């Protein structure tokens, strides 16, 4: 059977998917063990035991000063920032992207601006952001939004522009106004793409979150990573990064599931 046609069963899929990840883990272990043979105090590739110890303290032992469980406090703070940032960006993407995609005059007016903002690296303009928004939560969320919303807006707008012209025409012959074309034709069809855009934006969103937390913060996954980077505590950094990956994959899978549940028409194999 040709490879294009080889469908993989669910269980096999799980198995195959975990293979390369397992491989990476094994490679890591081999390298870590050999480094530790050379220098038992090596900090760069810590052994699983060391990581487990360090993480145990962060997960289960309350911090002496604040009384919080550090790991969970970090997770909660970061997820909250990420959620708000991703939420605002998604809202902006669907609203601005829709309008830009559907209405040519708006596209002409805002298109270049959005492109401009999309390509400006926000981290270069941090001082201005600080002055405008301070150093608190607002600034962190804003950095995420400035970082990912323009890309999402452009993606949604491009998708809406590519809707078959016939559909827009058809809607108008059925009496739809610009507004109705927008909310009844473009919006629902942009929704699956919006979820796709969210999934793609998730990676960059974490990047901006971590950058924001590295800049000024006192709690958060990114804060902890950058703090312990000061003494190269990879035994904390690596589990934190793995945890971020797990969180991100859970969010990603949830979004994929939601898209299939909410928009079955977009995932049906069409004959």
């Amino acid at each position: 059977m040709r490879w294009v046609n080889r469908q993989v069963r669910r269980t096999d899929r799980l198995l195959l998917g975990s293979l390369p990840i397992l491989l990476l883990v094994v490679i890591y272990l081999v390298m870590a063990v050999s480094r530790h043979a050379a220098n038992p105090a090596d900090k760069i590739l810590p052994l699983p035991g060391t990581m487990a110890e360090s993480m145990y303290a962060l997960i289960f032992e309350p911090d002496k000063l604040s009384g919080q469980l550090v790991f969970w406090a970090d997770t909660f703070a970061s997820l909250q920032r990420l959620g708000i940032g991703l939420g605002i960006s998604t809202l902006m993407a669907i609203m601005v992207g829709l309008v830009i995609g559907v209405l040519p005059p708006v596209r002409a007016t805002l298109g270049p601006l959005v492109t401009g903002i999309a390509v400006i690296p926000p981290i270069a303009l941090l001082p201005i952001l600080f002055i405008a928004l301070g150093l608190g939560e607002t600034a962190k969320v804003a950095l995420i939004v400035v970082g990912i919303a323009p890309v999402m807006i452009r993606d949604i707008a491009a998708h809406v522009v590519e809707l078959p012209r016939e559909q827009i025409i058809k809607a108008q012959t059925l009496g739809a106004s610009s507004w109705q074309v927008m909310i009844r034709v473009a919006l629902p069809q942009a929704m699956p793409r919006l979820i796709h855009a969210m999934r793609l934006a998730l990676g960059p969103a974490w990047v901006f979150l971590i950058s924001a937390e590295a800049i000024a913060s006192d709690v958060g996954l990114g804060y902890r990573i950058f703090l312990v980077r000061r003494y190269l505590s990879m035994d904390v950094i690596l589990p934190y990064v793995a945890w971020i990956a797990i969180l991100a994959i859970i969010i990603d899978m949830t979004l994929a599931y939601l898209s299939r549940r909410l928009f079955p028409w977009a995932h049906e194999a069409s004959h």
Partner: protein
Amino acid sequence: MSALLNLRDVWVEYGDRIIIENLNLDIDAGSFVSVVGPSGAGKSTFLRLILGQEAPTHGKILLDGTPLIPECGPDRGVVFQRYSVFPHLSVLRNTIFGMECAQAPISGRLFGSARRAAEAEAIEMLTAVGLGDSLHLYPAQMSGGMQQRLAIAQALVKRPRILLLDEPFGALDPGIRADMHALITRLWRDYTLTIIMVTHDIGEAFSLGTRVLALDKRRHDPHAPHRFGATAVYDLPLEKKISRAALEQVSITIDELGNN
């Protein structure tokens, strides 16, 4: 009787390809115009012009005596050659879409009794096109002919002044096609619609239409085929109930007529 639509010296060009050439035409209100012609002649393009989806390269089109703005509206309904239903709406929701737009300008959605009324009307129309059993399917779950019927129902339920049909019954079996003929004839008569229908079925063109229009190139230059566009090579007003025998004869001679 003043014409509903006037086309004056209309040309359509794509790049250096001339598609429609010097088309002059008047279409009366309440007429049922069948458009025939070879594949690629420009029949769909002609419909797009009247729909307002495209503007002519030269010439002008008048609707009720005023120039047609290149914009489509609820006065002109359409069934495209390629299925033009909304993939994200079920059969029933596709059909009530037009009514929702008219009655709910802001939300674009109907609720409660207004919705039930719209749905009842839609179900009636869907039953007429034979989709009464498939109200909750999405287009991707339907066969080609079912999608075509849905597109017809969607357009008919709005009862537009002018209805543009592009091979609407092409993918239907003879039984359903006959039902659809009856349906469209009834609606055309009851609501005095003006219908322009592209078809490849000469029998259908003559049995339904009050006028048959053939679009074709007047000249063929084998070395520059794209430099000549199509126009109305043949335009036959029909008194209804012409004998069927006469029709057969006309359909056989159409090619010669087309090249004169």
